[in-house]
């Protein structure tokens, strides 16, 4: 098992290098180049020259790449041209917001999607099966920002049940040691704040969860249908085990394997969705931050955001491979 994890980690090295190179080339290929980006419209011949020297852009490219790698390794992502803050500092505040939203969405998708898929498979070709298949297909066909807009319009604007933007009511005073607001509220044992944070989370998390929910339900259904016809399930039934034990121990344990793989693929979807959902709900996370960076040509922030998203995707796929190996003895014992 440990050998397997180490091997996976070693395989990551070339990908990370390729990734850093790609981002390096990418940021340098953006229209105008970094100096224009940093100086904006006010760039003059001399100031450009000074900036270029300052940033080391007059050095040969390999030297620049080396410096850039060194900076990345030490967590130095440069500074935002708008706020003048180091990108890393801002990232530390914004990334918990995106992660909190993303994890809530994934949890909603799992908690609803797995039982729904399971029930649909049990009622194969029945009403629930057809209804959930149809609903999931419709769910997949919704652009996430459109869904978010509709949710916001109905539940925040029209009905006024839930707040329509932000992470917490401005009148609530809550210290932020972790920047995961739910955690912060628990640490502070401030239950009023906890409920308020939860209320702010509900709409964006539901919008973000819809597509992964549909996907997880579909995959669970397909996996349960397939596993139910396996010989070892017949063996389990022949043993006289209770149906609930057969389902739990024999069907679900095997059906979870493809589901775990698919959960891994969701990370990308969640991050993509986060960019759009955060925009709709003015959620102060990495997604909306990056979009602002694009509008403002704030390339240091953009670079930081891209790297952050890519790293999250890579590491969550690593995590999925490891948990897959954990669930599947055939891989674990290779």
């Amino acid at each position, binding site marked *: 098992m440990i050998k397997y994890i180490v091997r996976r980690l070693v395989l990551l090295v070339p990908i990370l290098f390729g990734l850093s190179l790609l981002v390096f080339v990418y940021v340098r290929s953006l229209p105008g180049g970094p100096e224009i980006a940093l100086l904006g419209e006010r760039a003059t011949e001399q100031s450009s020259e000074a900036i270029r020297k300052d940033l080391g852009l007059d050095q040969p490219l390999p030297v620049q790449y080396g410096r850039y790698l060194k900076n990345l390794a030490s967590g130095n992502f440069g500074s935002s041209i708008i706020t003048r803050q180091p990108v890393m500092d801002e990232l530390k505040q914004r990334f918990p917001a995106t992660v909190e939203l993303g994890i809530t969405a994934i949890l909603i998708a799992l908690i609803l999607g797995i039982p729904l898929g399971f029930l649909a498979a049990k009622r194969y070709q029945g009403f629930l099966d057809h209804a959930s298949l149809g609903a999931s297909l419709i769910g997949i066909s919704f652009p996430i920002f459109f869904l978010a807009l509709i949710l916001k319009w109905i539940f925040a604007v029209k009905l006024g049940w839930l707040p329509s933007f932000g992470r917490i009511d401005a009148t609530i005073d809550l210290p932020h040691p972790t920047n995961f607001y739910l955690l912060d509220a628990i640490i502070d044992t401030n239950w009023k704040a906890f409920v308020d944070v939860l209320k702010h989370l509900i709409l964006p998390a539901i919008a973000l969860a819809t597509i992964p929910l549909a996907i997880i339900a579909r995959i669970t259904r397909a996996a349960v249908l397939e596993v139910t*016809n396996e*010989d*070892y399930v017949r*063996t389990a039934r*022949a*043993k*006289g085990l209770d149906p609930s034990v057969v389902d739990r*121990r024999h069907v679900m344990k095997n059906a979870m394997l493809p589901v775990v793989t698919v959960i891994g693929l969701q990370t990308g979807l969640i991050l993509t969705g986060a960019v759009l959902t955060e925009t709709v709900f003015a959620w102060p996370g990495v997604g909306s931050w990056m979009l602002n960076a694009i509008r403002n040509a704030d390339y240091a922030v953009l670079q930081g955001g891209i790297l952050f998203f890519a790293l999250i995707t890579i590491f969550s796929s690593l995590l999925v491979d490891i948990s897959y190996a954990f669930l599947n003895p*055939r891989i674990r014992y290779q």
Partner: protein
Amino acid sequence: MALLSVRDLEVRFSTRKATVHAVNQIGFDLESGESLGIVGESGCGKSVSALAMLGILPKAGRVTGGSVEFGGVDLLKLPDQKLRQIRGKDIAMIFQDPMTSLNPVLTIGRQLTETLEKHLDMDKDVAKKEAAELLERVGIPRAADRLGDYPHQFSGGMRQRVMIAMAISCKPKLLIADEPTTALDVTIQAQILEVLKNLTAEEHMALILITHDLGVVAGVCERTNVMYAGKFVETAPTAKLFSKPRHPYTLGLLKSVPRLDAARKERLEPIAGLPRDLRTLPPGCSFAPRCLYATDRSRAETPELHTIDSDDHLVACWNPVPDADIPERHSLEDPGAS
């Protein structure tokens, strides 16, 4: 009173297009400790009969008639919860393919102990010890060390031993083995049959051995039923069936078994034609279209089982094979080609 008494068992499968008459009113008795072979081509309904008796038919299948009395109780009338207390405990089953019949994500130990915990109320530690002893009995070396292993770490023959260990774990009164050796190498087949034979004898278990291979029943079963198109066409003590096959289909099966002692010039004779399509059941003998002995009556009227030669030999045929057509060479001395 017989241990198991099956009467007029009938199983149908409904597909979108048609209804398949998989098992058509079969019946037999089985005493405790007795061993019975059920022989027939694939698709003739032998496995389905077994699954129906245990109440674990696939979704499309359903029992449409008959009774399965086990120890005086009709299993087909039992609520599922009661049936589950018998399944795995008093009646256990071994399946054809040991590669797919064990759960790949559970350890062998867990798959053994779950039956013990369910039926014998053992706690975890006791069940584990018992599981190790069971593995030992079916001939798995270093049994205690292997409880934590997963199925993929065992060979095919070893997996089938594990399946047997699972099946006998609650000392069932009846063991049903469905093609237990078909998926295995020839040398392993003989070993597995040996294990089955010894265990059933030691524990005084009744055995139903389902197979397409007459060689397999020859050495193991006291009686043999030959099944064709969802019906028994001949039933006799195994020795008699081999020496005096009366149904043309039985004769055909015997002629198609390869033998090492057969003279070179003798050729294997396959049975001509294809198994019956079970979606329609016209009157007449199901085997008639493939039968050399078929008469006009065979094609018009369905034959029922009736005694022939002696009280324990029954055949469903209007025109049974005459003595003159029975080759000499079929005897019990050389079971199978192993």
